[in-house]
C-alpha cells in the first residue's frame, strides 16, 4: 500500500522546488505520480518535506572505528539504547556509538544514506560485517588507496593502464563505492615514523610523490567511470599552513573533478601572535573559483570526542600534544590508522579558530551545491550535533551568541565575526541531501521527483532550527514509515551500494599473485570480499565516457 504526504511544503532543490505546496506520492519504495486511492495519508500540515539526508563522510564502521569503541569504555557508559525503550537491538552511544545505535540515530535525524569513507582494503571484510548490523540507512564504503604499495610500484614503472586495472579489481574485491586518499604517501612514510610535507616530496622506498599518486588515481577513476570522484584528505592536515598544501593540491588537479574532504582541518595558516590562524576565506575563494571542486567541511564543535583517521602521523602528533590514549594500526602494503580521544574547548585558542574556520567555509563558499555538511564524524564532533550546526548556519543571532562564549583572543581574530549570511532551508536541503546525493552520483537519492527512492524526512517547521532538525515528525525509508517524532518505530535494513567497473584485470593477474606472495600475509584467494557479505547489495552503474 502506498503513502500520500499531503499539506506539506516540499523542498526539493534538485527540481528547484522551494516550499512548494504539493503532495508527495509513494508506492513500492519509490516516489510515484499517484500512490492510488488506498494510500495511507500523512497530514504534513505545518511541515516541510525533504528527501532523506545523505551523509557523504562519516566514520561509522570498520577496524579503526571499532578500536575507537574498544578504547573508550567510558564513552559508552552514560548513553544507551535499550529494548525497553522499544528498540529491537540494544546498544551504547557516546561519540563512537555501536552499530545499531548508529543506524537508529541517523534515522531519527531524518538521514537515510551514509558513507563510511576510509576503509583499507584489508579492512573491507570487517567494515561490511559491521554495515550488516547498521539498520535504517543505505550504506557504502570508500576504499583507501593513497598509500597502496601496488599502485606505487606501477607509478615507478609508469604503468598507468595497470593502475586502472588494479583499481577496477580492488573496487570489486572490497565491494566499494569509490576511492579515498588520506595523506597520500604519508601513511607509507609513517611506517618509518616519518611523514610527508609537500606534494612533490619523494617517498622513501618508492620513486613517486603525492602529486603523482593523486593524479594517477584520479585519472584511473575517470577512466573507470566511478560515480563519485576522488575523495581526498590532503597532506599536512591539521597543522599551521595546511591551507597552502590544500591549494597546491587543488591546483595540481588542473580541472579534474575532486572532492576535498573535511577541508576545515586543512584551512589553517601560521599568522597572528599564536602562529595559528584561519585561512578559510582563502580556501573558500579557491573553491568559488574552481568549479571542479566540491568540499565537505568537517565542522568542529565544542566538547569531547574521539578522533579516528587513516592519517597515522597526524594522530601521533595529536597524542604527543594531548598526552591522551593513542592507538596506531599500520596496515601491510596498504595504509594505516590512528585513534586519539580529544576535547575541543571554548577556552582553547586553537580550538576556537578551528570552530570558526569551519563556519567560515560554509558561509563564504557561494554555491551550496559544492559545500556539504559534515563534522567528519566523530573527528570534529559526533554526527548527532548536526541539528545544532544547522542552527549555527541558519541563525546569525544564535551564532553571535556562540561567538561571545569563545576565547576572547580568538573571537577578536576570526573572520567569522563579520559574516552575516544565514542559510535558508533550501540551502540546508542542498548541503545535507541534494548536493551530497548529486556528488555521490546517486541519481535516485536526494530528491523527491518521480522514480526517486522513497526516502523522505518530514520536519515540523519551527524557528528553532535545532529542535526542528533533531526530531523529524516522520521519516520514511524505502516507502515505509520508520520513525515518528524523532523516534524509530520500525527496524528496517537498507542496501549496501557498490560499483563493479567493467575493466578486466588480465594484465595484472600475475603481478598481483607475485605481490601477494612476496609482501602480504593473506592469500590472494582469500582476499576479495564476496557478495555474501552484502545481504542487500545494490549495484550502482559506472558511467564510462565514450
Amino acid at each position: 500500500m502506498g503513502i500520500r504526504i499531503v499539506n506539506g511544503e516540499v523542498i526539493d532543490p534538485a527540481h528547484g522546488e522551494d516550499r512548494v505546496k504539493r503532495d508527495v506520492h509513494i508506492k513500492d519504495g519509490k516516489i510515484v505520480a499517484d500512490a492510488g486511492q488506498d494510500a495511507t495519508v500523512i497530514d504534513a500540515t505545518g511541515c516541510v518535506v525533504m528527501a532523506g539526508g545523505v551523509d557523504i563522510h562519516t566514520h561509522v564502521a570498520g577496524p579503526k572505528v571499532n578500536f575507537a569503541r574498544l578504547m573508550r569504555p567510558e564513552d559508552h557508559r552514560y548513553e544507551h539504547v535499550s529494548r525497553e525503550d522499544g528498540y529491537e537491538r540494544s546498544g551504547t552511544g557516546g561519540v563512537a556509538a555501536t552499530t545499531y545505535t548508529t543506524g537508529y540515530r541517523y534515522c531519527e535525524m531524518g538521514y537515510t544514506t551514509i558513507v563510511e569513507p576510509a576503509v583499507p582494503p584489508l579492512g573491507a571484510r570487517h567494515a561490511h560485517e559491521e554495515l550488516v548490523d547498521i539498520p535504517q540507512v543505505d550504506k557504502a564504503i570508500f576504499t583507501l588507496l593513497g598509500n597502496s604499495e601496488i599502485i606505487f610500484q606501477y607509478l615507478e614503472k609508469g604503468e598507468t593502464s595497470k593502475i586502472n586495472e588494479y583499481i577496477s579489481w580492488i573496487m570489486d574485491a572490497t565491494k566499494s563505492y569509490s576511492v579515498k586518499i588520506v595523506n597520500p604517501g604519508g601513511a607509507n612514510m609513517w611506517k618509518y615514523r616519518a611523514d610527508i610535507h609537500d606534494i612533490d616530496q619523494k617517498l622513501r622506498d618508492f620513486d613517486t610523490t603525492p602529486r603523482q599518486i593523486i593524479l594517477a588515481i584520479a585519472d584511473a577513476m575517470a577512466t573507470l567511470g566511478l560515480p563519485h570522484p576522488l575523495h581526498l584528505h590532503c597532506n599536512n592536515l591539521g597543522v599551521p599552513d595546511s591551507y597552502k598544501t590544500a591549494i597546491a593540491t587543488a591546483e595540481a588537479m588542473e580541472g579534474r573533478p575532486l572532492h576535498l574532504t573535511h577541508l576545515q582541518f586543512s584551512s589553517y595558516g601560521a599568522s597572528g601572535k599564536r602562529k595559528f590562524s584561519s585561512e578559510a576565506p582563502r580556501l573558500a575563494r579557491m573553491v568559488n573559483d574552481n568549479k571542479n571542486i566540491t568540499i565537505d567541511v568537517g565542522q568542529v564543535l565544542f566538547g569531547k570526542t574521539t578522533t579516528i583517521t587513516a592519517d597515522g602521523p597526524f594522530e601521533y602528533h595529536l597524542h604527543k600534544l594531548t598526552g591522551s590514549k593513542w592507538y596506531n594500526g599500520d596496515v601491510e602494503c596498504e595504509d594505516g590508522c590512528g585513534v586519539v580521544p580529544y576535547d575541543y574547548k571554548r577556552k582553547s585558542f586553537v580550538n576556537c579558530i578551528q570552530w570558526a574556520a569551519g563556519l567560515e567555509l560554509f558561509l563564504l563558499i557561494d554555491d551550496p551545491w559544492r559545500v556539504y555538511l559534515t563534522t567528519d564524524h566523530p573527528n570534529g564532533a559526533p554526527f548527532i550535533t548536526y541539528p545544532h550546526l544547522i542552527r549555527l548556519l541558519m541563525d546569525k543571532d544564535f551564532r553571535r551568541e556562540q561567538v561571545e562564549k569563545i576565547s576572547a583572543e580568538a573571537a577578536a581574530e576570526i573572520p567569522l565575526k563579520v559574516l552575516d549570511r544565514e542559510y535558508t532551508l533550501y540551502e540546508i536541503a542542498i548541503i545535507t541531501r541534494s548536493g551530497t546525493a548529486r556528488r555521490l552520483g546517486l541519481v535516485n537519492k536526494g530528491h523527491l521527483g518521480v522514480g526517486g527512492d522513497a526516502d523522505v524526512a518530514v520536519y515540523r517547521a519551527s524557528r528553532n532550527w535545532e529542535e526542528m532538525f533533531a526530531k523529524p515528525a516522520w521519516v520514511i525509508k524505502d516507502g515505509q514509515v520508520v520513525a515518528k517524532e524523532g523516534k524509530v518505530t520500525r527496524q528496517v535494513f537498507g542496501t549496501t551500494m557498490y560499483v563493479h567497473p567493467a575493466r578486466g584485470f588480465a594484465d595484472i593477474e600475475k603481478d598481483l599473485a607475485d605481490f601477494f606472495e612476496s609482501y602480504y600475509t593473506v592469500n590472494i584467494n582469500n582476499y576479495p570480499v564476496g557478495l555474501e557479505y552484502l545481504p542487500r547489495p545494490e549495484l550502482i552503474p559506472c558511467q564510462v565516457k565514450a
Partner: protein
Amino acid sequence: MVALQLGGAPAATLGEVKNRADLVIFWGSNPAESHPRHFTRYSGSAKGRMNPRGRKDRYIVLVDIRPTPSVKYADEFIQIKPGHDYEVLTAMRMLTNGNRPDMDSVGDVAIQTLERLVQRCKDARLGVLFFGQGITETRGKHQNSMAIYQFGKDMSRHSKFLTLPMRGHYNVVGSGNTMCWQTGYPFAVNFGRGYPQFNPGEFSVVDLLKRKEPDAALIVAAEPMDHLPYEAARHLENIPTIVLDPRETLTTKMADVVIPVKHAGVSVEGTAYRMDHIPIKMRSVLNSPWPKDDEPLSTIIARIKAIRKEEAET
C-alpha cells in the same frame, strides 16, 4: 584487553612485521610451541620487502622466566625472575626516557643487558615486541600488558615500534570485535538491564560463576570446564547448561543439553579474525549433518519471543 582500553597501543598487521621488522622480541611467549607458524610466516624466517634474506635480516630476542624450545630460534635469551616482568619493563621505560635506574640489576637481569636491548629498540628500523600468556596470565595481569604498551608508546618517540599480543584461542579476536561493534565492549558485557553494561571485575564469566549468580548457562563454542578456575567451573555443574559445539569436550560431557553444530571453517563457511584483527574468510571443506551455529540460536530466540507474547496475551 583492559590494558588496551586504558591506554591504547602502537600496533600493525603482521605483514608489517614480515616486511619491515629488523628487531623482534618475544616476551613471555613460546611461539615454537604456541604459534608454530608465526615464525615462518611473519616474525622469524619470513622474507619481506626490507627483509629479503628473512631470518638473517632480523635480530630476535626471547624474554622469559625459563628457557623454552623457542630459545634456539633466538639470537639472545634474557631470563628474568618469575613475577618480575613489571619491574623489568619499568626499568626499560626509564632507560628509554633517559633515566638510568640506580641499581645493577632488576628481576635478575643486569641493567647493562637492558640498556643494550633498549638501544637496539631505538636503533631499529621497525622493532616489535610480541607478548604472550606468560605475562598476561601471571601476577599483575593487565598491569603487565599496560607496562608493555607504555613501553611501546615511550619507544615510539625514538623509533618505529609495535607492541602486539600473541592471542590464542580460535577467533577470540572475532568475538571480541563483534561484541564491541554491537555493545561497545569486547567482553564481560551484562545485558541484565536491557542494555549493555561493562565491568570486567564484576561481569566476567569467572566473577559471575564464582558468585553463583547465573541460574542457567548457554555456552557457544567455548570450553569453560577446561579453561575456567575450578570454583567457577564447579558452579556450571550445578545449573542447567546448554552447549553448542561441533566436538565432544569436557563441557559437552557435563552439559544437560548438547546441540551439535557445524564446525565453522570446516563444514560451514564463515569469518575468523586473525590475532592482528584481519578477518579471514573460512571455507567449508566437509559436509556435516548438523545445523549452523546461528540456527539453533535463532530458533531459541524466536521461541522465547513467542512465549513472551503468549504470556502477555493471557
